[in-house]
């Protein structure tokens, strides 16, 4: 099967079409959805499927999620565009108290097949309320699955899996890469939730990461290769469920793990990655674990301040050189 170059957003659009063609009960709701959403990831869907299935919502985030919960309990599968991830906070009550708990609290009577698509990450001076990465919050809540693809091909396959999944999935799409082009496999394909991928094999250190930080890690790895350092990059793709086996195997091979993400280090998902590694790698004696994430401040606007808080490729290079003393 061949592939084509397209943007991450276009790749998700293909997944949406496969899902909607396959199952008439898949509906899409969100603000400005019939205009394509904020990053064009929904462009054209309304023309193809009509406004009953691609529903423009008022600026009512808690309703968007509650309605998705009610409609899914009544037989639909709802993909809700939450726009910027910060806007999910207005619906956190519905996400945490309703969506994530419905199945368990009601004794398994019902599933809640909803996908909450939200754009996160820094994109260059979007300011404190449009730059956050909040996966740590979602990952802390039982009953939610969380995915964060790093490229269009995975974005397509993971979205397909997320929509097919019977439980609530938070689908995080990094806004820096939504418009970036990459090779995307033709046709319908599914990336199962909970499968990490080694996107660059290496032997000196394992960088365990996800979302756009994978792309930074690949740039860093290339640069470090010229210094003779061999960096393995593990793209988690899915945070819940987490592919602990792949991480642990990589950690056991290289003996050094750097968990990296854009979101805040303190209390962040990197700590969970490292704890999992500590719990799962049999020989701890040679294992070293490190993490790199944002410093504990809101994300500033100014082009000189933003990178002082949120790490990028250069920070990864510096951190890996420090860890390996090269």
């Amino acid at each position, binding site marked *: 099967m061949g592939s084509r170059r397209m943007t991450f957003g276009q790749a998700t659009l293909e997944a949406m079409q496969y899902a909607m063609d396959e199952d008439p009960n898949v509906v899409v709701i969100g603000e400005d959805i019939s205009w394509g959403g904020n990053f064009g990831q929904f462009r054209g869907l309304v023309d193809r499927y009509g406004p009953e299935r691609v529903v423009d919502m008022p600026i009512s985030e808690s*309703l968007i999620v509650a309605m998705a919960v009610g409609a899914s309990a009544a037989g639909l599968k709802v993909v809700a565009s939450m726009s910027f991830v910060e806007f999910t906070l207005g619906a956190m009550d519905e996400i945490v*108290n309703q969506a994530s708990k419905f199945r368990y*609290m009601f*004794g*398994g009577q019902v599933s809640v097949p909803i996908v909450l698509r939200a754009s996160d990450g820094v994109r260059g001076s979007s300011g404190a309320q449009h730059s956050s990465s909040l996966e740590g919050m979602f990952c802390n809540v039982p009953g939610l699955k969380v995915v964060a693809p790093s490229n269009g091909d995975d974005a397509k396959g993971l979205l397909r899996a997320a929509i097919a999944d019977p439980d609530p999935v938070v689908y995080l799409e990094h806004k820096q890469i939504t418009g970036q082009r990459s090779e995307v496999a033709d046709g319908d394909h599914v990336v199962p939730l909970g499968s990490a991928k080694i996107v660059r094999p290496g032997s000196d250190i394992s960088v365990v990461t996800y979302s756009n930080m994978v792309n930074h890690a690949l740039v860093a790895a290339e640069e470090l290769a010229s210094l003779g350092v061999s960096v393995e990059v593990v793209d988690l793709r899915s945070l819940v469920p987490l592919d602990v086996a792949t991480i642990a195997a990589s950690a056991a091979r290289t003996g050094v793990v750097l968990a990296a993400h854009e979101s805040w280090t303190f209390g962040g998902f990197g700590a969970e990655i490292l704890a999992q590694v500590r719990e799962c790698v049999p020989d701890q004696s040679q294992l070293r674990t490190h993490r790199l994430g944002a410093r504990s401040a809101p994300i500033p606007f100014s082009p000189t301040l933003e990178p002082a808080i949120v790490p990028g490729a250069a920070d990864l290079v510096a951190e890996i050189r420090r860890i390996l003393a090269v």
Partner: protein
Amino acid sequence: MDSSPLDRTRAIDLLRTMETIRAFETRIEALFKQGLLPGFVHSCAGQEAIATGVCSRLDRADCITSTHRGHGHAIAKGIELDAIFAELYGKAAGACGGRGGSMHVADFSIGMLGANGIVGGGFGIAVGAAFAARYQRREQVAVCFFGDGAANKGTFHEALNFAGVHALPVVFVCENNRYAQFTAASRTTAVADISVRAAAYGIEGDSIDGNDLLAVIDATDRAVARARSGGGATLINMATYRHSGHYVGDAEQYRSREEVAASRSEQDPIQRFTAHIVAAGVVTESEIADVRLAVEARIDAAQQFAEAAPFPDPATAMRDVFTEAGS
């Protein structure tokens, strides 16, 4: 009291439902006070006419969302008494396998989409159920029960606006018992009749005496007919009063003994309905006594079932966080 014709069978059915809710709440309250029930419970005694009247006009496939004060809604919608009783004990045979408890009683097989511990949590869920019904071309309605306190949540606004825009088949029923926990509605809400807000959402508003079972039925009929015929949503203010405290054990310092006593003696929905049907010659006093006896026996049986039922196995505690393959 409205004088809609009532046949004997229907009157007895309605009475049985109200008496069942009352007897259930009375029994639960007593058991809780003896320390026999885990957690905490909210009684809807005094508000039976609303759950009973509304649900009597719904089909099995119609959906309801409920509140923290939800036992009456579940019973009126048709939950098995054994299942709700066992749920309150946290038993495996409970409606939710003991996972939910009093505040999360649900039975999706009869369209009872859950009591809810989050005040105002039901608005959007009911709208979602109504949206799904419309989308799948099912002639179903969704009813959202909520309290006067819940009317001040932002979720109220978001849901009613959307229901108005799309003329969704949903009925918002405000059980206006004039208090939210310990605070009188007059201190928190600028309008006494919540239904005046309907105009702001382009939907119909209605306001009735919620302790008058026949008025509840009439208002429900109007709203449900509107919903089923594509006429959209209705917001109904149903004035009522709760006989017990906010929760069992509430010291009730925020309202006078006289106010409670007056409501119990003059506004009791069950007394009012029985007085009406006896005066109209539909049923006799002795038939009413028979209903009460049968209801008590049914509650006894449910209690025995719940007490005898086993607790869930702790080994099952991690089940159903997610949907397991094959389920």
